[in-house]
């Protein structure tokens, strides 16, 4: 299975046509896949709160948006999630690389990893954790759930899900 294509196919099948990204090495393949597709408009952001602003505008303009980012971004976007996405009740699937989890080689990444689920829980954000590649089978249902309830929803994808870091 090409996991990058599978994710992009699920996004497209759920009508997601506007995706903003802030890169992560783990996400490089899916970002490239999204960038190449004609059925999804890709706009890179410089920071994740900026990206959520773009997504809010796209939603109000009639598009289904999504954001792809690292879990470090949760530290950047708490105010935006609370006062824009949640306050105005907008749907936002967040495909998040879960750095600092099992098979992580960079110690500093663990410092945000230990806060990630606690912060998402504090924000009452429905959160799913993909650890095995087969977990991607839930993505279609998660996207449907997100656009059913009009909430931000987090999909944490760790290094094991992406197949480890190779020689990094």
């Amino acid at each position: 299975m090409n996991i990058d294509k599978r994710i992009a196919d699920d996004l497209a099948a759920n009508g997601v046509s506007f995706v903003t990204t802030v890169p992560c090495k783990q996400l490089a393949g899916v970002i490239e896949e999204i960038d190449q597709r004609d059925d999804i408009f890709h706009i890179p952001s410089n920071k994740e709160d900026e990206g959520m602003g773009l997504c809010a505008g796209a939603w109000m303009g009639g598009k289904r948006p999504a954001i792809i980012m690292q879990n470090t971004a949760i530290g950047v976007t708490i105010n935006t999630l609370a006062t824009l996405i949640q306050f105005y009740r907008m749907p936002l699937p967040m495909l998040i690389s879960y750095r600092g989890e099992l098979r992580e080689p960079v110690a500093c990444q663990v410092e945000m990893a230990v806060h990630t689920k606690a912060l998402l829980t504090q924000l009452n954000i429905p959160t799913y954790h993909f650890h095995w590649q087969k977990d991607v089978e839930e993505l279609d249902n998660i996207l449907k759930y997100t656009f059913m309830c009009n909430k931000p929803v987090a999909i944490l994808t760790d290094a094991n899900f992406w197949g480890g870091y190779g020689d990094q």
Partner: protein
Amino acid sequence: MIRSEILKEIAPILRDQLVVCNIGIPSQELHAIDDQPTNFYMLGTMGLASSIGLGLALAQPKPVIVIDGDGSILTNLGTLPTIGNNAPSNYVLMIIDNGSYGSTGDQPTYTSQRTDLTAMARAAGCARVVEVQDVDTGPALKEALASGEATVMVVKCDSGNAKMPVITMDPVVICDRFMKAVAS
């Protein structure tokens, strides 16, 4: 002129357009001067008006006018390269540059000293950037809408705020009526 005087003057131009308005006193002023379902008021999230407006302009064909401020742009400076590289022709970013953080007590921003937002927008890749004085805002806005090009306007004006009530409309209502206006 202060911001509220500019908003009063351009209200007839704004009335028929989709407007995304910056958090705090700018939204309170626009709401009090001429509330319209085509206005999206930001109630929180400092800095993101230009990004919300850009997403909206990219998602649908109607013109979008963002009423932003110098302090807000400085908060979210990464927005300028994103606008410079992606803004479609229906996007007008109007930065009311009064050199101060109006909603928090008129503390000076760096644009009141050495920082030049017009030059920064150009350096970020924005092709059509115009700097105008407060009294010229109306004609410059009409020109931007007619230009067929994405435009960044930097409107130089005086610092100061009108005393307007806080917006008590529910955010879900603001969003819902705005989305209906966008889709109509």
